[in-house]
């Protein structure tokens, strides 16, 4: 090894540099595969459909937001957007609220049945829940909650509970016991200890849980498709199916619709990249 070292050095260095160049090409190449379609979509929202049909690939000649206004007003995106926001935010808030108190008890204390309960909540992480749609449909029908935004909120909140309990109870478990002991000696009740002392300490986990529930609910297509009937209650993904039928020939509006649907999540992602990555890798990273 050592004797050959000098003779090999230039070749080895050239090899390393070629490797680096290949790496850069691969990394930027795939970045282009991801970004170019998205940039093309954004660009095409500002080009009239006529022009898109003539030249599918091209730059916009002016900055204008007409297509967004058309999608927002004529294609009912204003209604869909408000519904999506209302339903998603309510479901996330409800799920996080009930899950955090459950996770607190399960994470901090052991009592008869606590292990089984933890496993019971955890089981929901693995269940292909959509398959329960028929009984769920009949249940909501009995409760008068078909075609109701409130019904959808309840269903969504239920789906968020397993993940939230899982993450939050792990965080509650790690908090030092001295904190609550001191408060208890001062005469604080369980709820005060939970809400005033413990909850603020798991704020990072709350952020992860909130952000991570938000994305799949905002994007869900299946449940509103089945559970909501009237178009004025539809969320963005269901609205999208009608929109694509009606605006078939107006591509710049179609592209604008895609952007409007995705924009809130992009903003959320930029604000909370760390939480999203933490959520995606939960259970693998240490």
């Amino acid at each position, binding site marked *: 090894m050592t004797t050959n070292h000098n003779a090999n050095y230039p070749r080895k260095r050239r090899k390393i540099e070629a490797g680096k160049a290949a790496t850069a090409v691969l990394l930027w190449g795939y970045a282009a595969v991801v970004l170019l379609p998205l940039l093309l979509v954004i660009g095409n929202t500002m080009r009239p459909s006529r022009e898109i049909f003539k030249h599918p690939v091209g730059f916009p000649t002016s900055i204008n937001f007409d297509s967004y206004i058309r999608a927002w007003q004529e294609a009912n995106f204003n209604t869909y957007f408000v519904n999506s926001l209302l339903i998603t935010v309510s479901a996330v808030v409800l799920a996080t609220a009930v899950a955090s108190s459950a996770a607190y008890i399960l994470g901090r204390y052991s009592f008869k049945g606590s292990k089984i309960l933890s496993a019971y909540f955890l089981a929901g992480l693995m269940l292909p829940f959509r398959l329960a749609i028929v*009984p769920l449909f009949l249940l909501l029908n009995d409760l008068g909650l078909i075609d109701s935004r409130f019904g959808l909120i309840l269903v969504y909140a239920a789906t968020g509970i397993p993940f939230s309990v899982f993450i939050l109870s792990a965080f509650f478990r790690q908090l030092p016991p001295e904190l609550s002991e001191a408060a208890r000696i001062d005469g604080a009740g369980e709820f005060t200890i939970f809400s005033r002392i413990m909850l603020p300490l798991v704020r990072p986990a709350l952020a992860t849980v909130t952000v991570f529930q938000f994305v799949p609910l905002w994007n869900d*297509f299946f449940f509103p498709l*089945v559970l909501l009937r009237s178009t004025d209650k539809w969320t963005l993904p269901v609205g999208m199916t009608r929109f694509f039928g009606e605006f078939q020939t107006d591509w710049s509006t179609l592209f604008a619709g895609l952007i409007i649907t995705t924009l809130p999540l992009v903003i959320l992602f930029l604000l909370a990249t760390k939480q999203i990555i933490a959520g995606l890798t939960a259970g693998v990273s240490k």
Partner: protein
Amino acid sequence: MAVIKKRKTNTGVGQGAPPWPTIVLFLLPAFLLYTVFMIWPLVQSMIFSTFEFKGLARGAFVGLANFRELFTRFPLNEQLPRAFMHNGVFFIGTMLIQNTLGLLFALLLSKAPFGKRFFQTVYTMPYLISALVVGYLWSLMLNPLFGPVNQILKLIGLSDLARPWLGDPATALPVIILVNAWQWMGFPMLLFAAGLANIGNDIREAATIDGANAWQLFRRIELPLLTPVIGIITVLTFIGNFNAFGIVWALGGVGGEPAGSTDVLGLVFYRTAFRGGVDAFGLASALAVLMFLFIFGISNIVLRWFRRMESDLT
């Protein structure tokens, strides 16, 4: 009541548990919501699968008749095996393309001196977009007349390759696999990256000092140590692919066009439940039970298999 007074300190969190009413109060809302809207309907699916339905009304107990119908009634008896096969192809294609790319980029980025965060962010971004929106986006991109993809192929002199990607039964399913991989590649990449970060640098250094080159380091050290991550990714990919719905709907419609070449179990299930005949709910429940048993069963077998591989390594 003796249970409460027995102070358990073996959990390492200090105190004994609060009194039962407090415990119940803290747990009840989550327990109820989760049980009523998630667990109970899943259990009911199993019960309903053995009953005859007339519209929304549950009729008589019929044993396994619904299951028999799934495999004998036309066109279900043809659509089900076909959809099942498409899901299998979807899963294998995703493992080969999406997850291999995920591993490749995790490796490249683990050695990249800079830009790691930037590339990770870019690659993960499409995961944010609704599967339905991703599908619609690419249906426009791949449009045979006005789509940029064919246009670009013509511009770079590959006009022979330009074709109606989604209109041809031979290319439609592969295209869906690629579009789905475009959306999800960042996820296995992040998991692999986390797995690679968990491998101690001292092991790598020891191997390098012993004369291992980059390939040997990967093949003999990193890949075996990634076994648990590969297991998790395999199971999550399996569950994801066998639940595929929105992306296929957007690219192939509710019928899995063209000519059923993109029909998957998720679509068959939806059509059986909500576009079926008067006895649809019983049939759909039976299908749900089969899909549930299959997905849950295979996931567990795969997980156990990987766990055994993991323990064989150590």
